[in-house]
C-alpha cells in the first residue's frame, strides 16, 4: 500500500493488519526509551492547512519514535501567505526528498489530489467533512484493546455527523469490523443523504444509551457551520449532550469516547469527560502507536508490501465513499485550495 487516504482502501483485512502491527508499537511506546530504528533515513512532513493539536503532534511523535526525520509546515509563516498554490507547495516539499506527506486540509479530496501530484506516500490526516482514517483506526484499536473485538458491538455515534470526517471514517471502520452503528443526531446535523450508510438513525439519545457498548460523542463543529442549524447550543446540550444523568443510563461496561478537542459543557459534560470509563486519553495514547503502524506499513515495506493486494474501494459501503475523482462529492465549505486559514 502506498497511500492511506480512506478507510475503504484498507478493507476489513487491512484494518485487522494495522491493529495487529499496532500491538508491537504499543510495546515500543511502553519502553523506557520508546524508539526503534525502523524508518532511519526516511523523512515525514506534516502539511497541515488546518489547525490541529493531537493529530499533528501524534504523527510527529510517531515518526520520531520510528527514527524518521520530521519536518513541520507552519502555514502562517510559509509561502502560502504569498499566494503559493497547493500544488507548488507540495512539489517544492517533495523536491527536497521526502518519503511521506501527512496532509490535512479543509476541503474534501485534497489528499487524493496531492497523491496524484507527488511520488511519495500520502497520508490523509483529515480532509474537510470527508475522512480521517487514522482517527478511525485508533478508535477501533482503543475499542479492541478493551473489548477484544468489535464484532457485534453496538456503537452509538452522537452529534454533529454532518460536518464530521471522524464519523464518516469511523462508521466505515466500525461496520467493516462487524459492529452495529446507530447515529444519534438532530435532523439538521445529519448528512443530506444517508444512502449506503449501513447504520440506524434516530434522534432519541436516551432510548439508545441503555443498550450500547460504546457511546462515541462527536465534537460540535461550530467553525464549519455556516447557517443556523440549531436553535441554541443549550438546547442541543439538553437533548444530545452526554450529561452525568445520561451516563447513568449506560450499561456498566460501556465506553465513552470522543475524538477531541472537547467542547466541555456542550456535547459532553465536563465531569463526564474525566470519569474512569471515558477512553478519551487512551484514544490519544493509542493514536501514537497506530500512526507508527501506519507509517511503518507505508514506508517500511519495499516494493510489494503485505497490504498491496488491498488497494481500492471495497463492497457495500460505496454509497458513502468519498471523491472517486479528486474533489468531487462531499465538498467541504471552501474551494480546492482556498482553505488556508491562519
Amino acid at each position: 500500500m502506498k497511500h492511506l487516504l480512506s478507510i475503504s482502501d484498507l478493507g476489513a483485512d487491512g484494518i485487522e493488519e494495522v491493529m495487529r502491527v499496532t500491538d508491537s508499537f504499543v510495546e515500543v511506546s511502553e519502553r523506557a526509551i520508546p524508539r526503534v530504528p525502523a524508518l532511519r533515513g526516511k523523512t515525514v512532513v506534516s502539511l497541515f492547512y488546518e489547525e490541529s493539536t493531537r493529530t499533528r503532534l501524534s504523527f510527529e511523535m510517531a515518526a520520531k519514535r520510528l527514527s524518521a526525520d520530521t519536518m513541520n509546515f507552519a502555514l502562517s509563516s510559509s509561502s502560502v501567505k504569498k499566494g503559493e498554490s497547493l500544488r507548488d507547495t507540495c512539489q517544492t516539499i517533495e523536491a527536497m526528498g521526502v518519503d511521506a506527506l501527512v496532509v490535512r486540509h479543509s476541503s474534501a479530496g485534497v489528499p487524493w489530489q496531492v497523491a496524484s501530484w507527488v511520488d511519495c506516500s500520502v497520508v490523509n490526516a483529515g480532509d474537510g467533512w470527508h475522512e480521517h482514517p487514522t482517527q478511525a483506526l485508533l478508535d477501533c484499536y482503543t475499542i479492541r484493546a478493551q473489548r477484544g473485538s468489535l464484532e457485534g458491538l453496538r456503537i452509538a455515534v452522537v452529534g454533529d455527523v454532518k460536518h464530521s470526517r471522524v464519523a464518516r471514517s469511523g462508521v466505515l471502520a466500525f461496520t467493516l469490523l462487524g459492529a452495529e452503528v446507530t447515529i444519534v443526531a438532530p435532523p439538521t446535523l445529519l448528512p443530506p443523504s444517508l444512502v449506503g450508510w449501513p447504520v440506524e438513525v434516530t434522534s432519541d439519545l436516551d432510548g439508545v444509551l441503555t443498550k450500547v457498548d460504546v457511546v462515541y460523542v462527536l465534537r460540535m463543529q461550530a467553525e464549519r457551520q455556516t447557517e443556523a442549524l440549531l436553535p441554541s447550543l443549550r438546547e442541543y446540550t439538553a437533548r444530545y449532550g452526554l450529561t452525568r444523568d445520561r451516563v447513568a443510563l449506560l450499561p456498566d461496561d460501556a465506553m465513552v469516547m470522543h475524538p477531541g478537542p472537547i467542547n466541555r459543557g456542550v456535547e459532553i459534560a465536563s465531569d463526564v469527560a474525566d470519569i474512569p470509563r471515558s477512553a478519551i486519553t487512551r484514544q490519544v495514547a493509542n493514536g501514537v502507536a497506530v500512526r507508527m503502524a501506519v507509517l511503518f506499513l507505508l514506508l517500511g515495506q519495499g516494493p510489494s508490501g503485505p497490504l498491496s493486494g488491498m488497494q481500492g474501494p471495497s463492497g457495500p459501503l460505496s454509497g458513502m465513499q468519498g471523491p472517486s475523482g479528486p474533489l468531487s462529492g462531499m465538498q467541504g465549505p471552501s474551494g480546492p485550495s482556498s482553505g488556508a486559514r491562519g
Partner: protein
Amino acid sequence: MAERERAATPPYGGVFSARSQVMDAEDLRRAVTRIAHEIVERNHGLDRVVLIGLQTGGVPLARRLAEALSRIEGVEVGAGSIDVALYRDDIGLRPVIPEAVTDIPFDLTGLTVVLVDDVLFTGRTVRAALDALNAYGRPRAVQLAVMVDRGHRQLPIRPDYVGKNLPTRIDEIVDVRDDGVDVGEKKVRGPERPSERAN
C-alpha cells in the same frame, strides 16, 4: 524468524516442500538436553541467566530449553521473546512486518542473555536482535543457541551452542518444528494468494 514463514512472505513467495528429514523428534529432544547441559556448564550454573527466543521460530525452542534447564538444575529460568522486525537492515528492501509482540518482562542489565533461534543462516537476524536487546538494558554477556547452523554467514557471528551443523545449498530451506527438522525447497505458488501469511 522461522525460515518457513519468511519463505511465505512476498516477494519470496512459494510454499515449503520437505525433501528429507535430518532430525526426528528424539534427535531434537536429545539436542535440547545437550544444549541445556552446555549452558549450565559454560555459565557455572544458572545464576542470572535468562533465555530470549527470537520470534517466531526461536520462541518454542527457548521454552523447551527453559524446561530442560529447570529439570537439570531445579531452578526456574527466566524466558522472554523478542521480535527483531523493527531492527532489521533490509527494511524497505523487502516486506518486513512485526510477527509478534516482544515480551521481555525483566531488565536485562547485568544478566547473561542466551538468544535462542531455530536456524542460523546469514546472521542478519541475530545482528538485529543484538541491536534490539539494547532497548532492554545492558546484558553482562550475550550468548547464542541455535538448533541448526546451516552456514552461509554474511556477518561475523558464530553460535555458542549448536544442535546440528547442517551444510546446505543457499536456496534450500530448513524447517524446524517441535517434532523434527526437514530440509527442502520452496515451491513457487500461483499469484492468486497475494496477502496470505504463514500461521
